[in-house]
């Protein structure tokens, strides 16, 4: 027992934070999802068992919304990780005084307030004479209605790609210079060096960015809310988290349904956990973890 005392002592501050701010809310959400707590029942909520989950399952738009969510997360993720990697590689290949300003440009969407950023997109995609895209293509259309998915994915992707770009760039810079020399002497072209040396060495950051962005894309809906509000038409770009917001927190009846919202959030947590486990498996997490340098 004494043997574990010191490690436990060192782990306790972080554990306390995790318990308080991560574990407790999950339990609270689960408990809440089994009640009918809402604005009208706020003083006297009652246990309703799985009723909220039943409501979700019988939602006629369930399939559509799940499909939308998969499409949104999958495509945006592919854009974010792929573009991030491409940007990191390209800006690492050129001299630093070229690469750094270029990377800084890609950070602009991230530091812009989302509302302003989305206004810019709406302006770009509007009909002529307002819309730049209409002007350039010579076809005056509201492209937000014509190609809502492209707009949603690009608007999110231009913000998201810089995250991967930053992580991958620093990972590439951490690769010892001598490995590049060795690859060149061994006969590798630049392409072969990237494919056979750099990308395999980025396995851990790629896993991290993929997992992290999957989870944040599953739960983020502010850009879709501002850009299309789930439209055009009936749930054209409505994703799970936006649906939760619409259904539970911003419905026509003004009745905020906390219980139903919690049930939807709980489903998202389960999906997130499953997806994370899947990533850890395919990236062979154990092989990526090195033994700690500190001995206890």
């Amino acid at each position, binding site marked *: 027992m004494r043997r574990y005392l010191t490690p436990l002592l060192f782990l306790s501050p972080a554990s306390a934070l995790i318990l308080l701010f991560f574990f407790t809310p999950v339990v609270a959400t689960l408990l809440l999802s089994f009640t009918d707590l809402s604005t009208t029942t706020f003083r006297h909520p009652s246990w309703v068992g799985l009723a909220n989950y039943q409501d979700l399952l019988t939602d006629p738009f369930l399939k559509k919304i799940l499909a939308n969510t998969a499409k949104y997360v999958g495509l945006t993720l592919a854009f974010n990780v792929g573009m991030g990697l491409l940007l990191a590689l390209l800006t690492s290949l050129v001299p630093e005084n070229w690469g750094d300003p270029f990377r800084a440009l890609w950070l602009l969407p991230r530091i812009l307030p989302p509302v302003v950023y989305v206004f810019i997109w709406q302006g770009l995609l509007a009909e002529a004479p307002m819309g730049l895209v209409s002007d350039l293509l010579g076809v005056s259309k509201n492209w937000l209605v014509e190609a809502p998915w492209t707009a949603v994915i690009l608007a999110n992707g231009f913000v998201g790609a810089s995250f991967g770009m930053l992580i991958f760039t620093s990972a590439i810079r951490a690769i010892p210079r001598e490995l590049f020399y060795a690859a060149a*002497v061994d006969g590798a072209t630049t392409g072969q060096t990237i494919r056979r040396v750099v990308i395999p*060495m980025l396995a851990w950051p790629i896993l991290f960015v993929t997992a992290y962005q999957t989870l944040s894309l599953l739960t983020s809906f502010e850009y879709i809310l501002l850009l299309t509000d789930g439209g055009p038409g009936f749930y054209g770009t409505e994703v799970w988290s936006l649906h939760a917001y619409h259904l539970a927190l911003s419905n026509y009846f003004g009745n905020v349904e906390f219980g139903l919202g919690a049930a939807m959030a709980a489903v998202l947590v389960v999906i997130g956990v499953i997806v994370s486990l899947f990533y850890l498996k395919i990236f062979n997490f154990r092989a990526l973890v*090195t033994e700690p340098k500190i001995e206890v």
Partner: protein
Amino acid sequence: MTKGTGVRLERLTKRFGRVVAVRELSLEVAPGELVAFLGPSGCGKTTTLLMIAGIYRPTAGHVYFGDRRVDPLHPRDRDVGMVFQSYALYPHLNLFENIAFPLRLKRVPADQVRRRVRETAELLGIGGILERRPAQVSGGQQQRAALARALVKEPQVLLLDEPLSNLDAQIRLSARAEIRRLQRELGVTAILVTHDQAEALAMADRVAVFSMGELQQYAPPDELYHRPKNTFVAGFVGSPPMNLIEGEFTGDGFRAGGLRLALPKAPTGRGWLGVRPEHLGLGPEGLPARVLVVEPLGREAIVIVELSGHRLQVLVPEDEKPAPDAEVRIAFPTGALHYFDAKGRRIGPE
């Protein structure tokens, strides 16, 4: 395996901005020879090696492998193998794939890859651990794997950048002999970069001593030791280093402060008198001096003495070492002195 090709450097210069890393370097390495580039850090030896490998483009000058001019070529078209100080093994590949890497890039058929990797690994005694990753083997084994990767493609020229300096002292000595044996057996031309003069003297056929980006002397080890071309080489080669005393040659002697030596056929003018610690004698004859420090080395001891205001190192057998503060007499061997002029260039004796 193949016989190596000669390497010729012709007025090779490398500038980084305003800094001249290597200046007008010309030297030739014979086929099958092992040459050491020796010097302190920042002297340009590694820069020169990277220009030979093709990692750096020379600012001016040319590199030839035999009759082939290679300085405009990419490293992959030069047919060199290289071992780095950090070994630079690919951490995500096991030792087999690390060694196979150059062959895979050349699209050598799989069965040949397997055979050649096995052969080279056996030659280096790492045949049994090819499935392990670099992080799972010792430093000595990593070094062997790096050497195997450099040799597996049977290069014309083998470049070794401080390959031994990350090894433990004991393994280093055996690795020295091992590399020398392999290099002789394979007949590959090799260039070894090192800051360790003992390593250079022990391993190389010829040693090129560098300082401040310039070649100081290029000679076989014993010539470097017995006839250093200038005070830099005299002070850098040999351990403990040569004693150098600044003073005045008078034609029939040497004066430095209170120190006066009678030297028949001495030059004239200001300059440096050099004498190796092992050539100075402690005994009943000679000039009176006082012992400051005694450093026992086991078989021998370094005795630091003060002689007329000059500090000199004397190497004596362990059982003859004096006590600190003892009064001793120092005998100068007239046959083993070195004369340098005021600029440090060797002027005698012939």
